[in-house]
């Protein structure tokens, strides 16, 4: 708890907790850039699932979207860390926050390992569907976890 006590008092927490719009602005960045990240990932997933872009390979789509995904995830995670620092003790004790943090870690790890490798190759339809479906489930889990942190706080 010593580290959390240290985190509880920080410049970002001061900014977010003691200004009228600090927390709201950070949340808006968190949400909008998450949309950018997940939207680009879903474009590749739709191709892997065989539901869209039949004339384009998943490798091509991945190549065209990866930069937006990276920018989206980076801003989302940075804004999310700022939100966490506004009340680290409260978030750490939230079961839904723990769920979201684990889901996000797994989703990012999956995105840059399995998803990257399969999307960059020419996967068989079965493999593509499986990898795309797991990706969709992981990212929706992150959304759900994030929502319930606030809803059930």
């Amino acid at each position, binding site marked *: 708890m010593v580290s959390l006590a240290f985190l509880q008092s920080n410049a970002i927490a001061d900014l977010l907790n003691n200004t009228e719009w600090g927390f709201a602005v950070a949340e808006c960045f968190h*949400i909008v850039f998450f949309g950018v990240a997940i*939207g680009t990932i879903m474009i590749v997933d739709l191709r892997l699932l065989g539901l869209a872009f039949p004339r384009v390979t998943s490798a091509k789509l991945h190549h065209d979207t990866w930069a937006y995904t990276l920018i989206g995830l980076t801003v989302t995670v940075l804004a999310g860390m700022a939100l966490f620092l506004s009340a680290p003790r409260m978030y750490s004790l939230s079961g839904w926050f723990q769920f979201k943090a684990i889901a996000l870690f797994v989703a990012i790890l999956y995105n840059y390992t399995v998803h990257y490798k399969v999307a960059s190759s020419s996967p068989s339809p079965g493999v593509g569907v499986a990898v795309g479906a797991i990706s969709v489930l992981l*990212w929706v889990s992150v*959304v759900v976890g994030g929502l319930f942190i606030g809803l059930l706080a």
Partner: protein
Amino acid sequence: MSLYSVFESIQSTSFMTWVEQTPWVYPIIMATHLSCIAVFGGMILMTDLRLLGLALRDQSIAEVVGGLRPFKRIGFVIMVTCGLLMAGSEAPTYYPNPYFWTKMTLLLLVGVHALVFKPIVYDHPEELDKSPVLPTRAKAAAVLSLVLWVSIPVCGRLIGYYEPDEGKAKTPQTVTNR
């Protein structure tokens, strides 16, 4: 009958009462609403960026617009349905909230945007691909769509921050964390 009375009547229907009071129903509707915003809102952003030539440049505009259209439509219908259920189940609480009304106005403008630009931009993506320079109307459609679709989730989030002035408020409670 005032608009506020209409809002109260909507909330007091047995269905809306069920939505509000049954455990997990409201959270599930909200989770669906937000998941759709994240997934399909992201697709709208990417379509707009493609129109502006800022993303997916190796794909034709027709492929991006046509390929994502059915998903955006399905997502929009689910998103709006869930949003109506959420607003209806707490209608009097939303009534004094300026961010709620701003969001409704923006959604109305999305309809206007579709009416104006669908016939001259989105229904003819092949023409845009053939054009050496992207027509101004297509750029305008993309920029306005980006502004609208970034503003809508922002206003949606800000709904939860509104605390009515007790002297003027119709209801004592606020929409917390929503």
